[in-house]
């Protein structure tokens, strides 16, 4: 049969051959297994975070700091084959894209099959049909065929089967029945696959026309433009955090104001699970940390006064981990590093109400350090620094995902489609009732259908037919 297929393939026009290849179940299987392998790679090898992959410089830093210590000499090969960003690799996109094409072709090819399933197909089947297949049975019922036919049809109708009957051309006594159940289930195969297509479409739309900013950092009291051609800016009024007794975070929330241009458009309390959404752009609470407010004066003039988000964690020579941040003075270009008290444990160097600073003038390698007490000005490197007070910063994820509605519609279609296909499986039965010996009719039944429940259902049917048959006889 394979050889015959191949021969048929040889004479076909190229387009038809390609079409058949693209719509073949074998291709679908191969593609799914390729995606499985790529997925496993994506789980087992650490993947480059989404924001970093698109920026060559940070990608290099990531490779050097994260990937190389893990993979050593393999790093370059893994990176070359895009296995550290496998879900954006050509392999993954090609396999996924081809699978979508495969689904479209399969749907197109199924038109006739679906029409056949919905109509129910031919009623009458030949005698040899009833002699084949695993799911069949033969039984003899007392009584004329007409009575047996109505008995069987009634039983099947009770079990939600649609029953169609046809008498034989040769003899009125021989009757064929075709019964089917859940024929609309076949349409839901389409619904599920369509859902999958729309789902992928939704993700593609989102990744082409949307944007995503994973670390939109705002210190308390500061205002920042959202960017991405939105004309929006967000201000963090205040930030609060609560903790469970064991020290893990219980809740954290940001009181924010959103501006469009100069116009205030929305005030909101943003918490985990409760984002601020405005015109399809969402602001999610994702993290927080300390932001000591530092004031810098040069003689009598104040040149800087802002909270500095301590976004980094540094390890000191005393092995303690501390938060650290950096800012630059606009005029002179002087860089200032700010280090807070230790994350945990006793810190003998930098106390709770202190920050350490390291001031480096632009273009020189000279630096000066100082330890600032809260509220007490200190001269470091020719400038006066004041640790005004401890504030906090809040991190938001800002995302705009056009097509998210498509994704939800697709999810619904997908889940409903899959559920109907498997919980209301399509089932077909063919029955032939013909006269046997005097007063007895012979009933042959054959079932087909994807999820044939073995002989269970047919055995039950046989018992019922026999029971009803004897019952009728007694009556």
């Amino acid at each position, binding site marked *: 049969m394979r050889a015959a297929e191949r021969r048929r393939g040889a004479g076909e026009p190229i387009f038809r051959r390609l079409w058949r290849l693209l719509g073949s*179940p074998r291709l679908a299987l191969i593609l799914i297994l390729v995606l499985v392998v790529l997925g496993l790679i994506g789980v087992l090898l650490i993947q480059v975070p989404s924001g970093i992959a698109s920026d060559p410089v940070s990608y290099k830093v990531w490779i050097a700091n994260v990937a190389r210590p893990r993979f050593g000499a393999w790093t370059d090969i893994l990176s070359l084959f895009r296995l550290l960003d496998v879900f954006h690799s050509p392999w993954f996109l090609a396999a996924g894209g081809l699978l979508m094409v495969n689904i479209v072709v399969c749907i197109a090819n199924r038109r006739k099959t679906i029409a056949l399933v919905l109509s129910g197909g031919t009623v009458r089947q030949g005698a040899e049909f009833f002699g084949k297949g695993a799911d069949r049975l033969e039984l003899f019922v007392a009584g004329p065929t007409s009575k047996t036919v109505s008995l069987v049809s009634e039983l099947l109708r009770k079990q939600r089967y649609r029953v169609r009957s046809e008498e034989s051309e040769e003899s009125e006594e021989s009757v064929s029945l075709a019964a089917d159940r859940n024929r609309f289930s076949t349409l839901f195969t389409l619904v599920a696959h369509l859902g999958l297509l729309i789902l992928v479409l939704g993700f593609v739309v989102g990744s082409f026309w949307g944007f995503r900013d994973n670390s939109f950092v705002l210190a308390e009291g500061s205002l920042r433009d959202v960017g991405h051609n939105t004309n929006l800016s967000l201000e963090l009024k205040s930030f609060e955090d609560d903790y469970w007794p064991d020290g893990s975070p219980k809740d954290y929330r940001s009181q924010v104001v959103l501006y469009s241009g100069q116009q205030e458009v929305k005030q909101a309390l943003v918490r985990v699970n409760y984002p601020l959404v405005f015109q399809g752009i969402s602001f999610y609470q994702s993290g927080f940390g300390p932001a000591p407010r530092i004031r810098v004066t040069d003689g009598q003039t104040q040149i800087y006064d802002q909270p500095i988000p301590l976004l980094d964690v540094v390890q000191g020579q005393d092995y303690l981990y501390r938060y650290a941040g950096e800012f630059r003075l606009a005029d002179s270009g002087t860089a200032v590093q700010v280090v807070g008290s230790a994350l945990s444990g006793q810190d003998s160097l930098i106390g709770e109400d202190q920050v350490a600073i390291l001031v480096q003038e632009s273009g020189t390698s000279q630096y000066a350090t100082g330890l600032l007490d809260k509220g007490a000005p200190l001269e470091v490197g020719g400038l006066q620094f004041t640790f005004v007070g401890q504030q906090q910063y809040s991190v938001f994820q800002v995302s705009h995902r056009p097509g998210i509605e498509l994704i939800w519609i697709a999810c619904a279609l997908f889940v409903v489609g899959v559920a109907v296909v498997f919980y209301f499986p399509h089932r077909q039965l063919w029955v032939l009732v013909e006269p046997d010996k005097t007063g007895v009719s012979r009933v042959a039944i054959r079932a087909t259908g994807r999820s044939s429940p073995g002989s269970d259902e047919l055995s039950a049917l046989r018992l019922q037919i026999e029971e009803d048959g004897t019952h009728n006889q007694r009556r």
Partner: protein
Amino acid sequence: MIAVEQAMLIASMATLGVCLAVSLVFLFTRKPFVKSVTLGNPHPVSARVFTTRGYLWVALLGLALLFVTILIVSRAIVSGHGPFSNMYEFSVAFSWGIILMSLIFMWRYRIALLGVAGVVLALGLLAFASTLSSSVIPLVPALQQSVLLSVHVASAIVAYGALAVGFAAAAIYLAIRRRNVSWVPRPETLDNIGYRAVTVGFPFLTLTINLGAVWANVAWGSPWSWDPKETASLVTWLVFAAYLHARVLRGWRGARSATLLTIGFLAVLFTFFGNYIFAGLHSYR
């Protein structure tokens, strides 16, 4: 309540242990749980029914299910949320799903071996749970969304339970296919049950992933972020999708489809225990 919980963990493990011991004893003494009887007249059909000791065994397994149910409920009363915050709670819930599903399939198909396989898996998970800290840990903010999360995890448990039964059928199939063993069901029956179990579990697996996407969009700002646990569940889903397509469209039966089903369940276990293997957003212990 915590005392109740502890007692129930011990009681359910003890009951499952007794179930296992009893089934082994009856296995070696060749006393069946299920017997064939003939029904129908004048053309008899054979049917399989439980023997009295079979019924008692099912009742014992039902008792174990009851204990695990009480364990989960009493814990929910203490913690104020469903079993979704750490591996202890997941493992107990997973074993609940396995016992429930193996009871249902055992009852439906009258195959005691499915129940025994379920007992082994559930006992293993409860033993694993008993080694973990059972203290109630407070929820981090992302997990404080109880309705969505409860449905997400409940659906995962039903799916995993059904897929575990499918795996049991496939494993028994692979073990006996070349031998003629009188006391196990026919290979075709096992093959069929494996498929039926997947058709029960697969829609729930689909629902789990989709609900996960809905929740991820609320909590993390994106329906899908290729987090290792997400990806692992997608891989699991793809393996079962491959199984279904191979079976329905390419007619795979027997050893090939049983192997694929086994790989699928290994993927389930990988996803389930993945928290220990990879980091990521689902990184609770």
